[in-house]
């Protein structure tokens, strides 16, 4: 038995199968997960845009006007729309997953997952409305 190269007495040769580089294409649920993760890149892009805006603001009115005119160019507008769309998807998937991580209890009563998600959406709406009010009315 020990003469066979593939078999050692009391210790058979294990078969180790490698995970394919394309594992995320093998199932729709894996693919959805990768899509969710990729949206983080667009969130990072939104943060970079915001930082550039702040930097232009710091440099003075001329720099700010130049930056705003750069932002209003059609290719940048299109890119901003894409960034906004994926940031929106990222936020929605994030809020939908929040109840998994949070086990909230009011006294001895567990708060239902739907209510935890709803709380996140409500906070998002309130903060967005407050920001819109500050931007549109000048504070």
């Amino acid at each position, binding site marked *: *038995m020990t003469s066979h190269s593939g078999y050692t007495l009391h210790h058979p040769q*294990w078969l180790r199968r490698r995970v394919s580089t394309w594992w995320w294409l*093998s199932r729709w*649920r*894996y693919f959805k997960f990768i899509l969710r993760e990729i949206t983080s890149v667009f969130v990072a892009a939104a943060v970079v845009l915001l930082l550039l805006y702040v930097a232009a603001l710091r440099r003075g009115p001329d720099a700010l006007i130049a930056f705003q005119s750069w932002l209003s160019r059609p290719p940048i507008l299109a890119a901003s729309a894409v960034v906004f769309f994926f940031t929106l998807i990222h936020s929605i998937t994030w809020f939908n997953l929040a109840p998994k991580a949070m*086990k909230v209890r009011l006294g001895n009563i567990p708060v239902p997952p739907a209510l935890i998600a709803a709380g996140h959406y409500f906070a998002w709406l309130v903060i967005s409305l407050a920001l819109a009010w500050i931007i549109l009315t000048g504070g």
Partner: protein
Amino acid sequence: MPELVNLEVFRYSPEHTPEPRFQKFQVPYNKEWVVLDALNYIKDRTDGSLSFRWSCRMGICGSCGVLINGEPKLSCATFLPSKSSKPIRIEPLRHFPVIRDLIVHIGDFMTKLKKVKPWIIRTNESPLSEGEFLQTPDEMERYHQFSHCINCMLCYAACPIYGLDPLFAGPAAIALAQRYNNDSRDQGAARRMPILSSHDGIWACTFVGECTQVCPKHVDPAAAIQQYKLTAALHSLKSVIAPRGAA
């Protein structure tokens, strides 16, 4: 002529052929039959060398986990489909080394399971004369879901992170650690924390969520991991703000 069901079963016998292969079998269709019955039919009537694990036949022991058409499932809890034009493909669990046919080596899981100390730890033992530890239904509800784990390892076969990073503690081990962390009788959370909050513990998980999808007992290991991430993050924050209080 009885209706027949076609099966393609993964075969690996290194003492005969070093390369794995799929072997086709036909079994009679029976609406009460699960995949495990079909495998036992093959072993009893067609090919006695076919090797697979099973024990209880009722989704309790967790030993008959295989991939059925690519999905990690218990073979004792998956009925044979009738009039299936495509053959049913049965493979060993993904991400584990295969010993023979459908039997995988589970040593890695057993080592990781022991590391997270899945038992009640007491730092101050009470004398027997004080009686049993009483627990309210509400206290039990906090860990009950995680206590349903049967160590079937379907969650490891579904988790791409475990496949890519074999050092990852994995879903079941972390869920079982949480089962004891959430138990009002346990005092071992601090001893489990260095293992759970390490790089190969909860932080390796990127929340694919497949572990929860395939769990036959609805344990929801993904929730256990995300909840512990919150616990570990708050603990780190406390250790910065109030170093003495967090210790």
